[in-house]
């Protein structure tokens, strides 16, 4: 397979393939972070996670149209504004959903799963009614498309770099929030002992709602970023759910580091296998490996051993 190539060519291609793996890793991190926050804190699996992402994508679509129509001069920068709005829109919907649905179901995690699945169907239909069944084309500022030549042969896509920077920034932001802010302290306190946290005056209901909202908001930002690499349509969110859930579950509940490590290992495995095998078989093998490991180590990669 490699006989006809010089070492430098091979080196360049492997470097780019490594980079492709890193992009996939960033995509997985972005997909999974929001869900990991929610799952880690509340043990709730939000089946509508993909639809929250797509909401962010549609917000980005709307913003791109607004900027193109009213502020063409600023179009190059619209993406940043769009991400903020995506966070706010998905976050606000998240707050509402927590208030209307989730809070009634904390004691029944499996039922949350079903209720949020119902929610995802409703959101899909709303997107279809509002934006049409067809995919919408989100125009991306020119500076974000194209690639950056690092050497003569190695080129890296700019949107890939952008996604990576975003993944790092958001992970860092979430880490700050979880481990450096008052909210984070409350979240962790509730996680460890809800009754006691309640007793010492933490507003557990509000903290839960905020957590859910932030998790959904992060999903919205992810969706916004994915307009650069994927499609935006009513059912596009469903493409992400299996991968997202597996990343989170594989990482282990309640562990930010676990989510990141799991995103890294799954993305690298998939990326390497994709290079040597057909795409479909690579996917099947990756999923099987993850499920296989989960069977041996059901608690995921990283979990704190706690006294129950």
């Amino acid at each position, binding site marked *: 397979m490699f006989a006809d190539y010089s070492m430098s060519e091979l080196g360049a291609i492997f470097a780019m393939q490594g980079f492709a793996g890193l992009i996939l890793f960033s995509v997985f991190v972005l997909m999974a972070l929001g869900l990991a926050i929610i799952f880690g804190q509340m043990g709730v699996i939000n089946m509508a996670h993909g639809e929250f992402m797509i909401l962010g994508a549609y917000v980005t679509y709307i913003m791109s149209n607004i900027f193109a129509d009213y502020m063409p001069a600023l179009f190059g920068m619209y993406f940043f504004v769009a991400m903020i709005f995506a966070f706010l829109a998905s976050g606000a919907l998240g707050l509402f959903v927590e208030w209307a649905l989730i809070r009634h179901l904390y004691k029944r995690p499996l039922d949350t799963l079903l209720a949020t699945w119902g929610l995802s169907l409703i959101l899909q239909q709303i997107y279809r009614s509002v934006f049409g069944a067809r995919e919408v084309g989100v125009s991306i500022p020119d500076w974000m498309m194209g690639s950056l030549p690092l050497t003569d042969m190695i080129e890296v896509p700019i949107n890939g770099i952008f996604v990576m920077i975003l993944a790092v920034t958001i992970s860092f932001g979430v880490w700050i929030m979880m481990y450096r802010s008052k909210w984070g302290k409350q979240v962790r306190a509730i996680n460890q002992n809800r009754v006691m946290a309640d007793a010492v005056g933490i507003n557990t209901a509000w903290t839960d709602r905020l957590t859910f909202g932030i998790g959904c908001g992060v999903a919205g930002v992810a969706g916004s970023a994915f307009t650069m690499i994927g499609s935006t349509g009513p059912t596009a969110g469903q493409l992400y759910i299996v991968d997202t859930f597996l990343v989170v579950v594989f990482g282990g509940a309640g562990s930010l580091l676990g989510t990141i490590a799991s995103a890294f290992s799954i993305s690298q495995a998939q990326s390497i296998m994709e290079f040597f095998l057909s795409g479909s078989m690579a996917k099947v093998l990756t999923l099987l490996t993850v499920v296989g490991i989960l069977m041996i180590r059901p608690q995921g990669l990283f979990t*704190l051993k706690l006294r129950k």
Partner: protein
Amino acid sequence: MNVPNERFILKVEGLTVSFDGFKAVDDLSFYVEPNECRVIIGPNGAGKTTVLDLICGRTRATSGSVTFKDKELLTMREDQIVHAGVGRKFQTPSVYEDLTVFENLELSYPKGHGVFGALAFRRDDKVRDRIQEIAETIFLEDLLEEKAAFLSHGQKQWLEIGMLLIQDPELLMLDEPVAGMSVAERKKTAELLKRIIEDRSVIVIEHDMGFVADIATRVTVLHQGKTLSEGSMERVQSDPKVIEVYLGH
């Protein structure tokens, strides 16, 4: 400390468990004789419940050994440990709330424990008689058809004890059996316990010193996962180390 010999029914030796570096139980050893009632006391966080969890297989030990009648328990599954003759009652009453008292007891009846055994299990007179007998022991004979969810806290504790009794274990482990009970219930329970510990070995975790003095053959005081003191109630109560832990600081 005593040298182990064959007269002990339970031997705990060098038992250690650590949770992410924190040693909840640290190189603990103790021995229980047949028909002994051993009470474990100690301040909160001393590792009392963890010791019971380790013996009955609920938590996996990091190192050490627990032998019950010459069987190593640490490598056995929970249900195998039960079949070996060890019964365990939890701190909070754990009964099946959606089932009736009768059904709760019936499920604990030591027959039909395999999948197909359970399918073929029939409620014959022998089963009924035994359940009736146990129900009388635990003061619930009038409530057999009541759902467990409707029982009072104390009644649930009794029911759980009854569920253990019906298995007739050789070693019974009780975690705070009188906690959260009214005075009347507590009295009844003490009476019940005294009756059922007569012909078996028992390990009890308890805080109520009056109650402990009443039932204990020997007392083990745990502190930070280690044995602080061991012996008769009087000896333990006069041990300066114990006094310091309970009253000091």
